[in-house]
């Protein structure tokens, strides 16, 4: 079953003289429950594609539909709500709100949805943190967590509203191999257990090989 499709996606940056054409008519379809790695040389447009798929940025042209919704025509308010309910993010840096605890960070998307932090959300968030091996760190300030712990908190948060799609932009980029594999292992488990679709950009072949599908971005298009 198709989760999202982008067709003839074009993204250019800058004005006429300095124009950079990053995506040049890219087509991509993701099926529900897929675990896909996004590969490609630096500057090929992996992050650009992920932010467009995450509705954080509008393409210059092309179609983008997810769950049957045409996302190129939606208003900012609609996209914000769509993101909150259907898309989870894990970024490479700057993932957490440093002045909040691990648990508070994890339940943020749910609190935004509900307008407050509910007991149910707290229980659910704590459970996710335990599942990420962070049972000891539930009430730890996010600023004091290690890099690997932060990424695991970010994964937990991305899963909090049970989204259909999780986009991760080099989630293991600044982790050592052991922590990187640990994070990937957890992502793999979630993918198997919950059927959540993952799209993970990475430079690391070994990380990419843990995914069932490899998508390579080159010359503004994809193969694979």
């Amino acid at each position, binding site marked *: 079953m198709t989760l999202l499709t982008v067709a003839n996606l074009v993204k250019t940056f800058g004005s006429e003289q300095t124009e950079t054409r990053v995506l040049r008519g890219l087509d991509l379809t993701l099926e529900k429950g897929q675990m896909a790695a996004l590969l490609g040389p630096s500057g090929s447009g992996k992050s650009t594609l992920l932010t467009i798929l995450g509705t954080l940025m509008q393409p210059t042209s092309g179609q983008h539909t997810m769950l049957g919704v045409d996302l190129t025509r939606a208003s900012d308010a609609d996209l*914000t709500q769509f*993101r909150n309910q259907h898309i989870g993010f894990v*970024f490479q840096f*700057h993932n957490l709100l440093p002045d*909040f605890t691990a648990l508070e960070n994890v339940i*943020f998307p749910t609190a*935004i949805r509900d*307008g407050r932090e509910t007991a149910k959300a707290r229980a659910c968030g704590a459970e996710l943190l335990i599942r990420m091996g962070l049972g000891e760190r539930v009430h730890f300030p996010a600023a004091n967590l290690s890099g690997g712990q932060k990424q695991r908190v970010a994964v937990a948060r991305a899963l909090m*509203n049970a989204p259909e799609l999780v986009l991760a932009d080099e989630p293991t980029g600044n982790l050592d191999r052991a922590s990187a594999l640990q994070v990937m292992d957890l992502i793999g488990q979630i993918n198997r257990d919950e059927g959540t679709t993952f799209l993970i950009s990475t430079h690391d072949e070994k990380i990419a090989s843990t995914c069932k599908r490899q998508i390579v971005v080159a010359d503004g298009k994809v193969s694979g």
Partner: protein
Amino acid sequence: MLYAFKIASRYLTASKAQTALLVLGVAVGVFIFIFMSALIGGLAEFIMARTAGDISHVTLQAEPVDPVLLHSFTGTTLLVQEPSTQKDALRDATNFLSLITDLPQVKAVSPQIAGSGVLRRGTKVAQVSIIGLEPGQESAILDLAGYMVGGDVQLRSGVVLLGKQLAEDLGLTLGQSVQVQSANGIDAALSVTGIYQIGAGGLDRRSIYVSLSTARTLFAMPQGLTRIEVKLFDLYAADAVTAHITALTGLPAKSWTEDGAQLLEALSAQAQTGYFLKTFAMITIIIGVASSILLSTYRRRPEIGIMRAMGASRRFVVLVFVLQGALIGLLGGLCGAAVGYLALLPFPTRDAFRSGTLPIDITQGSYGLAIALTFIGAVAASILPARAAARVDPVTAIGQ
């Protein structure tokens, strides 16, 4: 709203020193606002009490009758006119006294017979104005009782109250007798039973007070009055009451504001100065809050990006930062008001103002206004930076 409040308060508590400094800055502004309010208000109160509060607010007095020139001369004419005592000016005035007294705005009424005369003691002579007051109502208009420095204020027939300056000029002391001659040429020997000091040199030297009956004798006025002075509860109502009294009695009445225009102007200029200073205090608060919220939005840009990516609406981001401004405004306002109140406590109350002390009126601190304005100002100050923050592009903010 509730959740935005949680985020906002966490942001404030996360950088405690910075927040404390900011609240302190706002509190200082509020303190200046309150101090200025109390000072300007107290000063106005003080000046009013010392001037307009101590004079007749409505005076009924006949216009002096200009003598008619019987012969007209050619060339330059020098006219010499004796001061008129306006003898029959307010002949029916006594009939209206109770009418005026019964007006709800009227605090006190003082029927008077006044005229000029001279005071003699041995070879010393002083030109004075003689004012006859109703015994028992000596302090109805001017607070004579409060100004007494010797003897007592009680008027009887045959006694006179003098200003300290005049008494010194004539070498008079309490209990001594002095010769008074009115402009009508009537003499009387009066004994000095009270000496007052108003402070305004003119009054202390120029006016003497006798009983109404003594004045009747001196000015040969068996009935009638030369003027009625009226004091009001609200001295700003003088113009309206004056018009009312004129309509009621047909007597020519004059409001203190006619001559007190300068005083009112000075007071309003003083109030203006106060408004300026208070406005500046508010502007300082607003700039302070606006710049700190702006700084906070810059510092937290990546976090704003994360929140937006997680599905926080622009409205939510605006709310987070406006609530920070509101909290700072409220805290600063409350602290400033509390400190302001405590700082004003040692100053004497409005009834105990003395010359030489700062006449600060703690009851005129405008505490509620200061807190409300600060709160509103702080909210207003944070709206623009908060809106700008809500519009940041999440992608560049996260900086991936």
